[in-house]
């Protein structure tokens, strides 16, 4: 859990370093989500932001629920974003998606019971030259085959770092 003081600090820092004060909400939410274990924005954090920025909590949730990169639910240690755009689709991307779902035994927007993986869809990741592609946290993996996907998952399960 991220302490209340730390969240306040993030908000304060954002206020100081930005040219415009009105628009720091999305930036702050990214910062908080980055720092909170499980990659999400819990209710208490949204409430602190609401107090600090004097924006109603409902407004914050309006934003949180609109953008796919924010989550109000706990996510896994590794967030796997699967590119579901056409270049990946024609390069057998569907098989990659099936393999991921089978290996992890979860559907999109779900988290494995061990809290390790969350599976999410993503629009084009911009790496069509090496499709199909996935992104795990901030790392890209391209030219995937079902075999490669299984290896990547197994490596991560085995505790190897990205």
């Amino acid at each position, binding site marked *: 859990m991220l302490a209340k003081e730390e969240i306040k600090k993030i908000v304060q820092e954002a206020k100081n370093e930005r040219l415009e004060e009105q628009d720091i909400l999305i930036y702050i939410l990214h910062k908080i989500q980055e720092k909170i274990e499980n990659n999400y924005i819990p209710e208490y954090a949204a409430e602190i932001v609401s107090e600090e920025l004097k924006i109603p909590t409902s407004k914050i949730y*309006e934003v949180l629920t609109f953008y796919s*990169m924010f989550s109000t639910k706990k996510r896994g240690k590794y967030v796997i974003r699967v590119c579901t755009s056409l270049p990946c689709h024609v390069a057998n991307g569907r098989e990659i998606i*099936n393999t991921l779902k089978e290996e992890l035994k979860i559907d999109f927007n779900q988290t494995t019971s061990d809290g390790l993986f969350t599976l999410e869809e993503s629009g084009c990741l911009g790496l*069509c*030259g090496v499709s199909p592609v996935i992104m795990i946290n901030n790392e890209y993996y391209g*030219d995937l085959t079902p075999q490669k996907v299984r290896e990547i998952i197994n490596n991560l399960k085995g505790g190897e770092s990205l």
Partner: protein
Amino acid sequence: MPLTTNTILICAGGACISAGEESVKDVLERKIKEYNLQDTINIVETGCMGACSLGPIMVIHPEGVYYQKLTPEAAEKIVEEHLLKGRVVEEYLYKGDKGKIVPQPQKEIPFFSRQVKVATRNVGIIDPLNIDEYIARDGYFALHKALKEMTPEQVIEVVKESGLRGRGGAGFPTGLKWEFARKSPGDEKYMICNADEGDPGAFMDRSILEGDPHSIIEAMTIAAYAIGATKGFVYVRAEYPIAIERLTVALNQAREYGFLGENILGTDFSFDIEIRIGAGAFVCGEETALMHSIEGKRGQPRVKPPFPAQKGLWGKPSNINNVETLACVPPIIYHGPQWFRQWGTEKSPGTKVFALAGKVKNTGLVEVPMGITLRELIYEIGGGSPTGKKIKAVQTGGPSGGVIPEEYFDTPVDYESLQQLGAIVGSGGMIVLDEDDCMVDVAKFFLEFTVDESCGKCTPCREGTKKMYEILDKITKGEGTEEDIDILENLANVIKDSSLCGLGQTAPNPVLSTLRYYRDEYLAHVRDKTCPAKKCKDLISYVINPEKCVGCTACARVCPVNAINGEVKKVHEIDQDACVKCGSCIEVCRFGAISKVTPAVQ
């Protein structure tokens, strides 16, 4: 500083990084140190060189020898052979069509030799983290020229004369847009760079931001001077962490060198830029939605007019240009409008970056003069089909675009010509499709995307695209009727005319264009319950040809649901009820005994 004898450019674009560029670089560095060459060999990590399917790539200067598909072992060998002994390592060179291997400079390789680089002039050539390398390639010269020798009106005039049109998709004349923003009354104005490229299959903006961030900073500053803006924002997708990182470094360097901030280059003009990060919403590429997102709200579009030039960010006059458009600005200012017009057509001057993807040999980014034909682009630069299968069509413009069948491949690529064919240039994505790709499936695919990305504000887009998706889904399952096709077409036209923003207005295009050229495929799905491309799972079956099957059991062993039965050395059979049509069996059969048939076996 000691004199370097060799410079190694190693591509650190997103695709090469994913293909193992970092480990190659690590080995290079280690080996170079081992041989005590670190003072004479300079390694530069550049942006994307474009030939993504051949990565990781590097080029060794002064000769310009181009090495591809590198591995850590390759790096070791290249240091020992090439750098130490001066012998070119043949196995990692580019291989020509006839399998002939000759060391050739990068610029002579067909993929590169046909290109004309304006927007991507520095991408893959300079170190994006070093402002001096940008300056060495005439960087910030245009800014100097604009601020010291030109009035804002003159800058706008040059851009207008160059004929530069917005590369983000719509193709609106850039100079005109700037003029609107300049003439719009207001003390405070904003200059925004739209780096929220989201069209599936287009990645030139990521590549430019990663490979040449200073070109965007320079262009935005020139534009700000022209329109009278004091603040700028770059709105970047959060999916592009490398781009964000490199742009952040570049902004700091530009401030340090006095190209941003107060009194730029000693003039009265002051301007600064900040980065705003998106959070995963395709609709934010639409300019009014993007501005809402910068303001910290839901990224929903609004009705235009008023246009951003009149009422933009926080209600103040704003000008928005896309990354690739901006990247063209500095050389236009520096060399003049006629220089840019030497390429392209009368109405679509200059060059355009295209992202080749799908069923083509050389996938990646290419920058070519406008007016090049699709055939030249796909066959001569793209190298044609990688498998020898017949190329059927090319999909351009992403979910807002359409398909162009092979018989129209001699059409020149420009805004008007593609529009006549029912497709668009869009942001430059070109997805090549072959005979294995079903056009109904492609249309359904894009509709699924639109349904997902519709912001939900207006009804035609929210409800209409969902209905269209449902009909397409029905058709691909073999449950559609001819009447469904009519409803689909009708619905498409209504949504096109009545949606609020560009996302909804263009969402029906993939359906309309596939219906235009491939109505027979739709009819095959509804009338005969067949999928001619054998792609739609509900309309196909996998069968074993008893004459070819030798009973090797490979297929039975790989089948995840045990649907294949048969004894060793005897003909195998697929249980159609159990089969999940995953295609694993066909991949492992070495005797070509398994095939797909349509309609499905009952």
